[in-house]
């Protein structure tokens, strides 16, 4: 063959192969800061994988969940990579709706993933989703206000201490409220917080026979504490406050203590957005000495629906986005404090990260004490720390959340709220034919 011909043939073959390989994958993701960063940096992925094009669908969490679940359950096939949480993975994995992630690459190092998180993402020892970032919950407090009140926050406070400290820091005339907690009704809003609290009070959602336990003493103690402490030291309007509203309150200096997601650590210490950036301290979520602390466990993860026809490309993307190299990339472009937290042990062994993020150690400790397979003091038939990984939970959790939020506003007594929660959960379980 002449050189010219072989050259042309070579070019043709190359063009053919790239055009055969060129595929577009659609990625559905939440509009949280870390995912936005992932989208920004995705040019790194496309440079390394020239045959793959990325299309993005970015939405608010609840809408995203609705869309993605509808699609995966009806095999709509609209997405190749889905961002789902540790709530969905056990349920969907069991249904066979997710592709097993068995081809993440040689350098991926699956064992580097934090065990608490990894266990939430495996069903029958198969990994169905890769964690993008993980979080637990912790206590954030104002060091200046604590000092003014003459108190010192221990690293592992008790709920009794928190109540005392909140009261001491409250000055309603001046617009300072000792404690800000979620109050907005929703299974991922107030229920996430109160369920985690209840774990540390010794309560549980169901006993081993799937009988709801809201008429137990432990639940009464939990809800009574919550309502009392918010009445004494909480801000007005708390029944409509979710994560963002409390974040705004804390950043404008209105809260003495805020117990919420560990990712908030980066926000409240950010000088650009927070008026109190240099006055924040961190502690582990409180407990009552019963062996479980009041923190939760959540991770946003990337998964491939089994209806996707581009699972290879999708897995390549997931591997890139959750790899060690990705963390280094973020560190290079945005600084170590912005690296997605809570997924890999290697990150926490990295002194550069630990120095840049003052909340890193607490985050790691919090994640490691959470155990989704054994979340409560007494045994339970479900997995999940701040949720119950059954399909019915979203509806049940939100309905119970509405009752709790009514108790918070004083429209119902704690007893009434628990009683109606008990009834409605019993009803729902009957409808869903539990025990199964």
């Amino acid at each position, binding site marked *: 063959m002449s050189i010219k011909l072989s050259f042309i043939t070579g070019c043709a073959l190359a063009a053919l192969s790239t055009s055969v390989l060129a595929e577009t994958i*659609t990625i*559905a993701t*939440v*509009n*949280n*800061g870390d995912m*936005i960063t992932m*989208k*920004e940096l995705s040019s790194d992925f496309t440079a390394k994988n020239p045959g793959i094009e990325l*299309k*993005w*669908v*970015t*939405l*608010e*969490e609840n*809408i995203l969940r*609705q*869309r993605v679940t*509808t699609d995966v359950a*009806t*095999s*709509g*096939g*609209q*997405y190749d990579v889905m961002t789902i949480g540790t709530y969905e993975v056990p349920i969907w994995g069991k249904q066979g709706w997710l592709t097993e992630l068995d081809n993440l690459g040689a350098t991926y190092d699956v064992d580097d993933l934090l065990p608490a998180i990894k266990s939430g993402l495996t069903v029958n020892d198969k990994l169905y989703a890769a964690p993008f970032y993980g979080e637990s919950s912790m206590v954030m407090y104002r060091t200046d206000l604590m000092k003014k009140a003459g108190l010192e926050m221990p690293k592992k406070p008790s709920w009794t201490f928190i109540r005392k400290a909140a009261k001491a820091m409250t000055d309603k005339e001046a*617009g300072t409220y000792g404690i800000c907690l979620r109050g907005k009704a929703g299974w991922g809003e107030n229920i996430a917080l109160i369920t985690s609290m209840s774990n540390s009070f010794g309560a549980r959602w169901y006993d081993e026979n799937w009988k709801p336990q809201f008429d137990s003493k432990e639940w009464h103690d939990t809800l009574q504490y919550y309502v009392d402490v918010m009445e004494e030291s909480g801000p007005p309007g708390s029944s409509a406050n*979710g*994560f*963002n509203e409390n*974040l*705004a309150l804390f*950043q*404008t*200096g*209105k809260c003495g203590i805020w117990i919420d*997601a560990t*990712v908030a650590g980066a*926000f409240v210490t950010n000088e*650009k*957005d*927070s*008026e109190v950036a240099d006055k924040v301290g961190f502690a582990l979520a409180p407990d009552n000495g019963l062996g479980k602390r009041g923190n939760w466990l959540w991770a946003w993860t990337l998964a491939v629906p089994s209806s996707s026809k581009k699972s290879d490309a999708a897995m390549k993307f997931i591997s890139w986005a959750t790899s060690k190299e990705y963390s280094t990339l973020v560190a290079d472009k945005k600084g170590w404090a912005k690296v997605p937290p809570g997924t890999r042990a290697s990150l926490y062994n990295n002194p550069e990260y630990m120095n840049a993020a003052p909340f890193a150690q607490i985050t790691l400790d919090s994640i490691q004490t959470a155990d989704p397979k054994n979340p409560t003091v007494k045994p339970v038939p479900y997995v999940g720390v701040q949720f119950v990984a059954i399909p019915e939970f979203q509806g049940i959790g939100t309905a119970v959340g509405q009752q709790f939020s009514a108790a918070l506003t004083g429209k119902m007594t704690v007893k009434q709220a628990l009683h109606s929660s008990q009834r409605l959960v019993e009803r729902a379980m009957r409808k869903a034919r539990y025990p199964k």
Partner: protein
Amino acid sequence: MAINNSNKSKLIYTFLAWTIGGLIFFPILWTLITSFKTEAEAISSSPSLFMFDWTLENYADVLSRSPYFTHFWNSIVISLGSSILGLLIAIPAAWSMAFVQTKRTKNLLMWMLSTKMLPPVGVLIPIYLVFRDFGLLDTKLGLVIVMTLINLPIMVWMLYTYFREIPNEILEASRMDGATIGEEIFHVLLPIALPGIASTLLLNVILAWNEAFWTLILTAANAAPLTAFIASYSSPEGLFYAKLSAASAMAIVPILILGWFSQKQLVRGLSFGAVK
């Protein structure tokens, strides 16, 4: 004396009108102003109307993060497309109902309106399944079809009440002159009815532009209009009010401009049969 009195009342009415109009417009004004603030400023406990550091960073952020123009184009195609398609179907229907009255006309009208009574949340899954089977998910065509169908009753109804005001004699005269039905519609009816048709078109463009249920459920990356664009800025974890304001401004302003230029049209056409 008369002149002074009328000027005085004009002044009072102007003052009243501007105050009330201003109060009504205020939340939107506030959104527009917030879009120029930093996030920290947007949640500050001492909010200010003008005295702050104006910044364009939110707009820059929003434009770099999302394909605004793709969304914008999708919104235009879907709103305009469904309104025009709707008109094509509704005009003949309204014509026949207005000029060929039967006993059943009123019931027919009520039935059409009643098709809007099934709440979207209830039919979400059936529609999704149908769309999946027809390959219409995430297509502009699919959304145009949905928007046309949900607004068709309103379009028919508006056109019907407008057509009813047109005196029959004019049309009969043209018929006696030997015009066919088609000519009758095109050369006689449409020119007279143009204001009503225009405002029906406008109203439906606005309704379709802001429809935030089906446009979110049935689209993914390709056909998502501005409603999805805004939804991607709403309630993430972290401060977002300034960016949401910027995104909203970018979605509201086009429609506001449209409304500004067509307000006379809108006012004239929404007469529901009370025009002389």
